[in-house]
């Protein structure tokens, strides 16, 4: 076969996204280490992250309820495979823990990092609490990770 050429291109772009009012309020809360959910007046489901409408009832959401920064690990894993972070072009190396945590006061689970990379020390049902960064910018990764409460 004759020569085959490949062309290398790096996608490098930025965008400016509007959050909407609900996410703006949520982000303001994070800057004060406060977590809130939106509760549906129809089915009662308490949603994180905030969104304008309950996807099941189609009702507009407006009732804010407080949520603790700790809760139950409903699912967990330890990731060994490196992951290329598309925001920065940098590689996150394993092992790192991840979990779906149902924070006290919410009905959805939060996908976040766990500060535990030994699978023999992890199980469904453990409790975990947020470890916040020193600098808070109003984003969900203001929580650096969750630590298992032992």
């Amino acid at each position, binding site marked *: *076969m004759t020569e*085959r050429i*490949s062309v290398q*291109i790096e*996608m490098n772009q930025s*965008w400016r*996204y509007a*959050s909407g009012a609900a*996410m703006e309020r949520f*982000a303001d809360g994070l800057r004060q280490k406060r977590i809130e959910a939106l509760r549906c007046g129809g089915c009662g489901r308490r*949603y*994180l*992250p905030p*969104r304008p409408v309950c*996807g*099941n009832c189609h009702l507009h959401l407006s009732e804010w309820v407080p949520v603790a920064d700790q809760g139950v690990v*409903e*699912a*967990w*894993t*330890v*990731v*060994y*495979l490196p*992951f*290329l*972070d*598309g*925001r920065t072009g940098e590689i996150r190396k394993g092992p*790192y823990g*991840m*979990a*779906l945590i149902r924070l006290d006061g919410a009905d*959805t*689970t*939060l*996908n*976040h*990092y766990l500060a535990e990379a030994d*699978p023999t020390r992890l*199980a*469904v*049902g453990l409790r975990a609490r947020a470890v916040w960064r020193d600098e808070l910018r109003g*984003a*969900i*990764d203001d929580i650096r990770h969750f630590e298992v409460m032992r």
Partner: protein
Amino acid sequence: MRPAAIIGTGQTDHAKSRDDVSQPELVREAASRALADAGLRPSEVDAIIIGNMEMFEGRALPELWVGEGGFANRKPCLKIATGGTSGTSSCIAGFHQAASGVFDIVLVVGFEKHSEGQTQTGMALTDPFWDRGVASGALGNFALSISQYMAERGVTPEQAARVAVKSRRNAAKNPHAHLKDANATVADVLASKVLAHPVRLMDMCPQSDGAAAIVVASAERAKKLCSRPAWVKAATTRHEQPYIGDIDRRLLSMRTLRDASRSVYATAGIREPLKQLDVAEIYEPVTYAELAWYEILGFCSEGQAGRLIEDGVTEIGGELPVNPSGGVLCANPVGATGVIRVAEAASQILGRAGAHQIEGAKTALVTGYGVYAWADAMILGSEP
């Protein structure tokens, strides 16, 4: 609505890298093969559907560059970009177009060049305010859900490994498969490295380059052109909420797949799936998912999936062969993967599945899966 059927299929030989061809050339390979299989010239195609995602290969408007490869110039051409379900959704859209009466012959092509980009990275770039801060791709998401499945139903790594063994061995009979091994064993799977606990390398689907295509025909054309068309008896898709945390006990409950499969079963008169289905091509990105979905699809009751595979029920030669092609575990060019499921199921009914043909297959189930819990389901049959 009028009946419509699949009358031809085509696939590339899926591989880790096809850097000998550009994206449109890859599409052309599959499209040409499907048209040849259907006995049609490109000029006889009325509409084309392309299945592929922008962010997976990092180039805008896939259908712009590759449409020509799919013979789309000056024809109606649409793109469907729905993650893993792109392939099955594209086939269902093609069915809708032919069944509507507006088009007689629809060509559907799905493709992916995994080797050119960073699919896991690209697909994690969803909601900019939430998802991007915490991501580990499809692998991490599945590993999370699997911990719940194991905790609640006691499925074991050995049972999951049997799915990988079935896949590799079946794939040895499939010339299009990327990964194949006629001698694969459970020990091989359990010795492969852990990617994300408890998912091992051989539990997980590969990242493949490949394309697949089908030709859907209206009833009138199908009867003239094909001796054994694969009729679309039922087809539906289900969308879901935006965040993984919205979906409780995802693998265990997947209401989208449950609803979609119940819907197509009802339409096609399937009351006992194990008995009435002759073959199933389901979209299983990881071994544990295939087991969880045996339960959701009604092949067995809750907690019995491990038993089902241990008893060989889903092997070629068992009561309901699942993924005789080798499934997603043996080839995963994402935009094409759903089309491959449809093409493989259709091939069974068309009688063109070669070494992995299930004798006398008359009724087939197809499922598609994408992102967190998007689900597609189809029933193909030998009668209109």
